[in-house]
């Protein structure tokens, strides 16, 4: 199996085979990221497409420092962010007026029945701004200050959006877990 550095070199030389190999190797993982950041499949496909074009355009700047997969993921997340910024005026900030408090203490909940595909489904049901803040904070590890710069909101709004996102997620996770338990007997 060719090493990634050789594939990168091939891509830089314009080798079509290496370009396709790079795509085939990493598209599935990056598409999962795209789905996580988008509300529908069409948007996810657009992010993947634009993200990969940027990856190929910027390969020359990759310094072979750190994980190449991490570098690609950052590009895809930035593409999703860009798309979000361009269309965030279309999104309503608060799609849910009233967010119910979770019924039980989440520390004691058992979420073991949930699979990745369920988690993805749940996260995609979040309103766009909550989803974006939750992804950037909880999954990517950015601070509220960084998030406020990234999507042009205040730190307070970022914290508030995160809190609301978590509440919704906890509720939905509980719901999904309950349903799964019923289905599985």
């Amino acid at each position: 199996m060719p090493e990634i550095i050789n594939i990168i070199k091939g891509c830089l030389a314009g080798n079509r085979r290496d370009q396709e190999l790079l795509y085939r190797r990493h598209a599935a993982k990056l598409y999962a990221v795209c789905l996580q950041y988008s509300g529908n499949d069409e948007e996810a496909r657009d992010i993947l497409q634009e993200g990969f074009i940027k990856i190929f355009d910027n390969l020359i700047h990759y310094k072979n420092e750190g994980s190449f997969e991490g570098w690609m993921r950052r590009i895809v997340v930035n593409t999703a962010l860009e798309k979000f910024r361009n269309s965030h005026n279309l999104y309503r900030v608060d799609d849910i007026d009233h967010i119910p408090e979770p019924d039980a203490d989440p520390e004691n909940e058992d979420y073991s029945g949930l699979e990745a595909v369920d988690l993805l489904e749940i996260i995609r049901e979040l309103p766009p701004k909550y989803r974006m803040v939750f992804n950037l904070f909880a999954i990517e590890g950015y601070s509220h200050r960084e998030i406020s710069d990234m999507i042009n909101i205040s730190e307070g709004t970022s914290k508030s959006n995160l809190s609301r996102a978590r509440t919704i997620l906890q509720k939905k996770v509980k719901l999904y877990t309950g349903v799964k338990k019923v289905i599985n007997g």
Partner: protein
Amino acid sequence: MANGDANIDLLFRNGLKDFEVLPPVGVWAKILPAIRKKQRPYVMLRAAAVAAVIISVSVLAYKWSTEINISLQDQNIAVNDKSANIQDTRSVQKISGRRPARSVANSIKEVQAQMLPEESPVPSPDNQTDQDMDHGSLESGNLPSLESILGIRRAVIPGMTSGNQYSGTSGNSYSGLKGTPFDQPKDKYPKWSISALVSPTYYLKPELDNSIISKQISSSEQSRISYSGGVSFAYKISRKLSIQSGLYYSTIGNEINGINSFSGFRSYDYTKGDHNFEVLTSNGLIYTNNSDVFLMDQAGDRVLTKYTNDVFDPAKAQLSYVDNTLYQNFSYLEMPVFLRYKLIDRTIGFNVIGGLSYNLLVNNTVNAHISGNNFSVGKTAGLNPFMVTSSFGMGMEYNISDKISLNLEPTFRYYLNPFSMIQGPKTHPYSFGIFSGLSYKF
């Protein structure tokens, strides 16, 4: 609640980590044209840059050769009236052996008789010339110059009055007859040529010594068809002899059979050395630089390693088999300095070519192949970075026009220094290639 927040964060972070979803079919088909479109300008720019360099060099070379021709002409021509007159007089006297003034007209006649056919449409100046000369008032308008008769371009002599004026007072000189008209017409042929040549090249190596390992190396290796190509310039020293140089890029490939390569060794590699395996080849020692590769000689002792068969079994370790052949690839930038002697100068001409080439190593890789892709193994250590080769060849030249010719040059090449500088078998390979391409003369 804070722990609950962390819990939900962790649930999603860990749950979605390494999650993969196959993208819809057709995304790649949309990405490819976009990246191809962006790459095209770079390819075009590169091609334009190469074309610009070639054109610039050609123009400079042309200007230079033109200047050399002019300066050579100027040197041949007398630099002032006096010397021109003396030279003319001598030339005329030498030819006719009579009084110079009279002999000019006779000389013209003689030259006309020699150079022009009888039915030549050029008017004869016979009677008028004699008459005018006797009166000492010959004007150039009445007498066609020898240059015009012979069709030779006349250079202007600095300090001389314009027109072919005959001075009656100086008596015996005719300024129109300076120097060159009585010389043989100069050979005008293009001095410079630029050629683009490419050749498939086949490399051969002499037999190594009679040891078992040397025999094994010789029997398991075979040269791959290599390529050489580039641009060369030639300058004609004389009609037959020219000197040629340029810049070529050449590749050399070598296949080493019977060496099994496996991937997935990284997790078993506990050594701190810079390479785990060495492979003995006729071109030197291959050092692995990919810690993920495991090499094993199918039958022999060409692989030198701590991980011998009794220490490590790739099958038990479930390493992935890659290939049973290693491919050595070397690339050189080559600057030839050749002499070319023309044996036959006709529509189809033949040349003898010989000289030296200076080769600079620019690429050195060793790969295995898996599913049509390269799997990097390492490189050949201790290669001579600077090689000198001697070449000898026969060139066939088919002149499509005065300026353009098609070339075919079977060339034999011998490496004067060995590939490897370090311990191991030292070979001086030789190669045979047929260069073909186009030449443009100017």
